């Protein structure tokens, strides 16, 4: 018998090692780059957020104060830019106004805070009055950073809204250029009314309410940049049409219909244009762009099965979309006039591109190895467009799809079936602060507002 040669395996394992090392460098570099593009490479100021004091004994004061405090804490924690001082380290005395503040008690260890919020909330004659301050407790010289006063009707919803506004003010001050998202909205598809309709909710999952009452199937909600109109694709008696719902008027308004099927609308960030997919030209789905009122539709793409366009929100000069022109769906990018087509992914099953607000990253859903026996799971990935480097955000291989970016470019909302059926989740783009936002019915296709 001939002696079997075994040397070949040694060489290939060395090569493999080499690639692994190289790969780890590349992904480390990719992570650094993407971290910077996500504004995540920074240290975090230490922020203490003691409960606001109840200003009086009115029976409504205590419950509203509880709501306010919880929402304020969550908003500041969820922003992911603060190192929240643990409550167990707080000194026993909490100030309700500047005169009561003992800065050293907060700035020294154990709390060791850099910045402190505090204030008071009271209900008088059916109005809730909130006074809040933000102080730099390390600097004995000029400590006040913010002082705010709010007065609204005394309801839990208003207490939430005030907390959101105050949190956003704090983030605007301390976020060194990063906007707060506490007042933003998420639009999504839900089956809980019996059929698929478009719903909305606060960014933290509160105030979920039904918007459309099509009575058929409504998909792919996309809110306009100014928040006044909601575009979506709805099934009429015999075709899919792009429909426009006016949140101001509380009803759908006229939007041109055509004799084909129309899907997946998307807004340019200046509100002047809408991109969508339509079969009107060839019977197969292609990308069109029209004015915001639907006039002047122009065909941009010539693929088979093109869908899910999205504008680069920073420049509006490019559109990313999904095409099945080579077989399994892949992500492509072209200039907004249809030229300069580039293929961004080249394997697996890639869908649902979402462009980050700073124009540097694409989030998308991807199955790297797609085949007939595969259960159809996909994970969310982030791609740095300039370098084409990719980072994986979800790892469970369940069905994670439809990522959408927050206005601060640091959070992603997506649909996932990790609990057994489709629900909507939000997460900071580095994987922390994962939260389930919906629980009732099946919920999908989330879209985060522009502001």
């Amino acid at each position, binding site marked *: 018998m001939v002696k079997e040669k*075994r040397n070949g395996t*040694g060489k290939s394992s*060395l090569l493999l*090692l080499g690639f692994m*090392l190289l790969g*780890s460098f590349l*992904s*480390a570099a990719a*992570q*650094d780059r993407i971290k*910077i593009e996500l*504004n*995540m*490479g*920074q*240290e*975090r*100021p230490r922020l203490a957020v003691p409960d606001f004091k109840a200003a009086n004994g009115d029976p409504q004061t205590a*419950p509203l104060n509880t709501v306010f405090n*919880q929402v304020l804490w*969550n908003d500041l*924690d969820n922003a992911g830019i603060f*190192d929240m001082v*643990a409550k*167990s*380290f707080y000194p026993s005395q909490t100030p309700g106004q500047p005169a009561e503040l003992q800065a*050293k008690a907060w*700035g020294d*260890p154990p709390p*060791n*805070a*850099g910045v402190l919020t505090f204030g008071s909330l009271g209900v008088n004659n059916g109005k809730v009055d909130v006074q809040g301050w933000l102080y*730099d407790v*390390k*600097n*004995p*010289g*000029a400590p006040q*950073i913010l002082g705010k006063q709010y007065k609204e009707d005394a309801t*839990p919803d208003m207490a939430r809204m005030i907390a959101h506004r105050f949190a956003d003010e704090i983030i605007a*001050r*301390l976020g*060194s*250029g990063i906007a707060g998202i506490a007042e933003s909205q998420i639009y999504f598809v839900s089956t809980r009314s019996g059929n698929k309709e478009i719903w909305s909710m606060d960014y*933290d*999952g*509160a105030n979920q309410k039904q918007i459309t009452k099509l009575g058929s199937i409504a998909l792919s909600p996309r809110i306009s940049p100014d928040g006044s109109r909601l575009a979506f694709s709805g099934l009429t008696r015999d075709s899919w049409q792009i429909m426009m719902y006016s949140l101001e008027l509380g009803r759908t308004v006229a939007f041109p219909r055509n004799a084909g099927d129309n899907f997946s609308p998307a807004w340019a960030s200046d509100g002047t244009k809408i991109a969508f997919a339509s079969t009107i030209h060839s019977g197969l789905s292609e990308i069109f762009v029209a004015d915001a009122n639907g006039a002047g539709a122009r065909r941009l793409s010539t693929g088979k099965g093109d869908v899910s366009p999205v504008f680069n929100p920073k420049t509006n000069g490019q559109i990313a979309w999904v095409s099945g022109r080579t077989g399994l769906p892949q992500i492509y990018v072209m200039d907004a006039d249809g030229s300069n087509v580039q293929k961004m992914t080249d394997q697996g099953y890639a869908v649902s591109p979402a462009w980050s607000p*700073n124009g540097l990253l694409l989030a998308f859903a991807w199955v790297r190895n797609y085949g007939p026996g595969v259960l159809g799971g996909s994970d969310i990935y982030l791609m740095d467009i300039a370098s084409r480097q990719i*980072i*994986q955000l*979800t*790892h*469970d291989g369940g069905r994670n799809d439809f990522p959408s970016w927050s206005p601060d470019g640091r959070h992603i909302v997506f649909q996932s079936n990790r609990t057994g059926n489709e629900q909507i989740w939000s997460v900071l783009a*580095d*994987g*922390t*602060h*994962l*939260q*389930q936002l919906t629980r009732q019915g099946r919920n999908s296709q989330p879209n985060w507002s522009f502001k």
Partner: protein
Amino acid sequence: MAYAKANIFYEREEWKKPVLLSVGFHGLLVLSIAVWGYVAQQHSTANDWGIKQGDAVTAQLVSASIPIPKAEQSDNIVANESKGVTQTQPEAKPVEQPPDDAVPIQGKVKPQKIEKPVQQAHVTQPPRPVPTPETAVPYGEGGPVSGPFGSVTTANYKGGFSFQNADFGGKYGWYVDGVKRRVQANWLTYEIDPRIKAPHRAFIEFDITRDGSPANVHLAQSSGVPSLDQSAMRAIQRIDSFGKLPEGNSVTVDFWFDYPPK
């Protein structure tokens, strides 16, 4: 049967070389892993981004009518009862703490070391020793930022800054901190030619306008290394806004970037 026996006998004769090769390659493998592990500790490793499998996820109910106390997240990677940025420090370091009421002395260089924050805990790796010099004063544990002027070293950023408006830093230490954080986080050192061994310093000067956006970003003094100059410029240029200026219409800032950092 005899045939099979003969084969086995034949192979046994030849076991020395394969075993040696096997031991050799295993040793090489172990060595490579060790090297990889050490090297990868300088950067983050490939798979520690994102949501992990088996992450304990706590559903946080935030309802308007029934206020429910926030559940503590277990196994959460970042939020925990830590005193601050230094929570993954394995060893206690002699830390030079300036007295709490220290007033920043204008013009005096106060060496301050800010540590690179740990973004994710490495479940499979030992805590990373952060290579900072002994005088490190991590943010939040030391005194206030020394006014408008100071030098900074983190794991990947060595340099300093100076705000030309003397009062500004005293009054708005929190704003100065924010600018410093953004710039140091934006500096991509792997853009620089790695062959540089001798220390070089690039000076960048820029204005922060009323709305917080950097303007007039220019190279005040070249380091002599083009890739270092460029990476320093880009660190500032990448930033859209530092946040609205708390006072005034414009403030001029100098940043310097030292390379190599150690």
